[in-house]
C-alpha cells in the first residue's frame, strides 16, 4: 500500500511539473494562491510566534536558576530555539492544519463536483493547473512567514523578559548577539523549503484523488493534515541529522 501511494505520488508530481499550457493563467493563479496562503496565514503565524517566543524566554529562565550560569544565556537559547526549531517546525505544523486542510478540501470538492473532470475534458493538465501554483505559492510565501515568525518570536521574548523580570533587555540583546552563527538560519530555511513542499504536495495529492462525496472530502482533509504533519516531523529529524 505504501509503495502504491508513493509511486502514485511521484507520478502525480511528474504531471504537476510538466510545461504549463499558458504561463499567464498560471501566473494569475500563483498570485491568487500566494495571497490565500501567505497573507491569509499571517495572522495565525504572528499570534503563534509571539507566544512561542514569550513562553520560550520564561521557561528557559525558570530552568536556569543557578547563579553560575550567566543570565544572557536565556537570550542565546531563545534565539536558537526559535530560529532552528520553533519557527520552522511549529509554524509549519500549524500551517499543515490551515493551508494543508484547505488545499485538500478545495481539490477534493473540485473532484467530487466534477470541476476537475471539466478541466481535463477541456484539455487542461488539471494536475499542473491546480497544484503547481499551490506548491510554488507555498514554497515562496511560507519561508517568508517563517522569517517573520523568527523576528516576532525573538522580539516578543525581548519584550516579555524585562516585563516579567526574568532578564533585562540589555542582557537579552547581549545573549541574542553572543556566538551568532548564521548557519542556523541556513538550516532553518532549508527545513522550511522542504516542509513547505511536503505540506503543499502531500495535501494536494490527498485532495486530488478524493473519491466519493462530501464525507470523503473531510476524510481527505484529515489525511492531508495528519500525513503532512508526520512527514514534516520525519523530515525535521532527517534534516537535523544531516545538517547539524
Amino acid at each position, binding site marked *: 500500500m505504501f509503495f502504491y501511494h508513493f509511486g502514485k505520488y511521484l507520478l502525480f508530481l511528474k504531471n504537476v511539473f510538466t510545461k504549463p499550457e*499558458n504561463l499567464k493563467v498560471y501566473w494569475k493563479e500563483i498570485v491568487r494562491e500566494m495571497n490565500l496562503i501567505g497573507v491569509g496565514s499571517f495572522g495565525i503565524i504572528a499570534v503563534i510566534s509571539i507566544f512561542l517566543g514569550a513562553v520560550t524566554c520564561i521557561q528557559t529562565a525558570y530552568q536556569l536558576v543557578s547563579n553560575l550560569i550567566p543570565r544572557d544565556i536565556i537570550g542565546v537559547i531563545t534565539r536558537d530555539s526559535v530560529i532552528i526549531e520553533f519557527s520552522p517546525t511549529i509554524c509549519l505544523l500549524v500551517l499543515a492544519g490551515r493551508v494543508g486542510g484547505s488545499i485538500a478540501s478545495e481539490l477534493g470538492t473540485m473532484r467530487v463536483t466534477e470541476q476537475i473532470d*471539466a478541466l481535463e475534458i477541456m*484539455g487542461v493538465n488539471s494536475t499542473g493547473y491546480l497544484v503547481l501554483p499551490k506548491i510554488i505559492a507555498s514554497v515562496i510565501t511560507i519561508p517568508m512567514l517563517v522569517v517573520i515568525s523568527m523576528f516576532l518570536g525573538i522580539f516578543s521574548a525581548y519584550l516579555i523578559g524585562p516585563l516579567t523580570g526574568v532578564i533585562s533587555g540589555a542582557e537579552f540583546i547581549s545573549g541574542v548577539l553572543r556566538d551568532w552563527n548564521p548557519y542556523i538560519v541556513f538550516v532553518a530555511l532549508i527545513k522550511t523549503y522542504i516542509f513547505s513542499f511536503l505540506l503543499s504536495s502531500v495535501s494536494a495529492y490527498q485532495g486530488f484523488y478524493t473519491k466519493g462525496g462530501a464525507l470523503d472530502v473531510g476524510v481527505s482533509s484529515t489525511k492531508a493534515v495528519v500525513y503532512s504533519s508526520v512527514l514534516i516531523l520525519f523530515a525535521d529529524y532527517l534534516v537535523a541529522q544531516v545538517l547539524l
Partner: protein
Amino acid sequence: MIELKNVSKSFDSNQVLKNISATFKPGITNMIIGGSGSGKTTLLKCMIGLHEIDAGEINYDGIDFSKLDFKEKIPIRKEIGMLFQSAALFDSMNVEDNILFPLNMFSDFTKEEKLDRINFCLKRVNLENVNQLKIADLSGGMKKRVGIARAIAMQPKYLFCDEPNSGLDPKTSIIIDNLIREITLEYQITTVINSHDMNSVMEIGDHIIFLHQGQNWWEGSNTELIKSDNQEVNEFVFASKLMKSKYQ
C-alpha cells in the same frame, strides 16, 4: 461524426460495457438512454476520455481517440464541449471568468474579442447582464445555461451533455432541451446527450441508443422508439402512466 466500434469496459470483474458499436452524426441530437446501471455514464465518460476503454475504438472524424496519449488528445479535446449533470462550474470564479477560462487557456483572442465572445455565448443561452454573478448565486437552470455557454465558448465540434435536465423543473427542462437542439442545428455540432428523461427524449431525440446491461440493445428515432416491440425498451419507455396515456 463520432463512431464507436466494439467498445468494452470493465471495472475489476464487472463488465459494464459490452461490445458497443454506434455512430453519432453531426447536426442531430443523439441520445443515450437506459435504466440506472445500464452503463450510460460510463459510456459517456469513455467517449470523452475520462475512462480508458479495455477494447474497441472511439473515432472522432476518423481519429481513434482511445489510442492517443494525453498530449495527442488535446487538439480533439479543444473541440469538445461538455455540459455536466451538476454543471461543474468553477465556483471560485464568477460567470464571466468561467466562460473566459477556456478562451484564456487556448485562444489568441484579444481582451475585447474575448469579452465579445463571452457576451455572445451568454446571449445565445438567453442570459444577459449576469457576467459578474457568483456561481453560488445562480439557480439550477441558470447554472446549466452558463454550463452550455462555457461549453460552446470555443465553438466545439462535439457537445456532450450528461443528464442536462436533472434537478430542473419541467419548464426549464424544455428550455434547456430546445437550447441544446438549436445549438446543435445552428453550428452542426455532433451532440450526444445522456438522459433518462422521456419527455426530453420525445422532445429532441433524433437518434436514440438504448443501453441495457451494458449493450447497445436498441437504436432508432424517437418515433420508432414508441412503436418498438422490444420488451426491455417498452418497459423503460412506458414505465410512467403519463407516457402510457400519451403514446400507447
